[in-house]
C-alpha cells in the first residue's frame, strides 16, 4: 500500500512536526534500509525501496506457487480461455 504522505499532513500536530517526520523518514530511506515505524509494540508500517519491493513480491509469489503448484496449472488453463467478463 502506498500512502501519499502529503495527504496525511492534517494528522500531525503542526507543520513543524510534519517536516520533522519527513526529515527523519528521508534519512531512514537514504540507505535503502527498511525503516519501521512503530507505536509502542505495534508495527505501523515499513518502507522499502522499489527494488526491494519487487524482490519481496517475487519471493512471496514464488513461495505461494511452490506451496500450491496446482495454481500454476490452473493459471495456465485460464490464460488459454477467452471467457472474460466485466
Amino acid at each position, binding site marked *: *500500500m502506498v500512502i501519499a504522505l502529503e495527504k496525511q499532513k492534517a494528522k500531525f500536530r503542526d507543520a513543524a512536526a510534519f517536516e520533522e517526520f519527513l526529515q527523519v523518514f528521508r534519512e531512514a530511506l537514504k540507505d535503502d534500509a527498511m525503516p519501521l515505524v512503530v507505536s509502542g509494540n505495534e508495527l505501523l508500517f515499513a518502507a522499502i525501496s522499489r527494488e526491494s519491493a519487487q524482490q519481496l*513480491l517475487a519471493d*512471496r*509469489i514464488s513461495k505461494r506457487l511452490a506451496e*500450491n503448484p496446482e495454481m*500454476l496449472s490452473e*493459471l*495456465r488453463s*485460464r490464460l488459454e480461455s477467452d471467457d*472474460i467478463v466485466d
Partner: protein
Amino acid sequence: MSYRIRFQRSAKAELEQCCRVYACMGGSLLAWLGTLAQEAELHEERLSFDIANLPAYLSRVVSPIESSWRATWERFQVATWTEDMKAILEIIKTRKPPWQLRASWRVFPVLGGASHCMPVVFFDVDHVGKQIVVRLFDGLPGQ
C-alpha cells in the same frame, strides 16, 4: 482514468464468493485492483511483479546455501511446476506485445483487524485494449 478492470469468469466468481461471506472486503479488494489498473496505465508498476521475470529471479535466489529456499526448490522439482511455467512463458512470448502477465500480493485485515489474509492476484495487462484482466486469485478469505 485508469485502465478498465475485467475478469476471467472464474476469477470473478472467486471475488464474488469472498464478498458474499466477507462483505467488508469488497471495497478493499476493488481498491487494490484499481491501484493495479492505475499503475498499468502509467507504466509504473510498483505493486506487481512481471511473471516473465520469475525464472530469472528464481535462478538468482535458489542455491544450496540459501536455506530458506531449499524446501521451496524441492517442491518445484517434484511438481509439474516446470512444465506449467514453460507453457505460461510460451503464452507470454507468443501474445502480441504490449502484453504482460503480472502478479501482486498484499496483506489485508479481516474482520476489523481480528485476523488478516494475504491474497495473490494474477492478471494480464493489455496496453492496446487499455485494460487489465484478472485471471486468478489465491488466498482470499474463505478460498
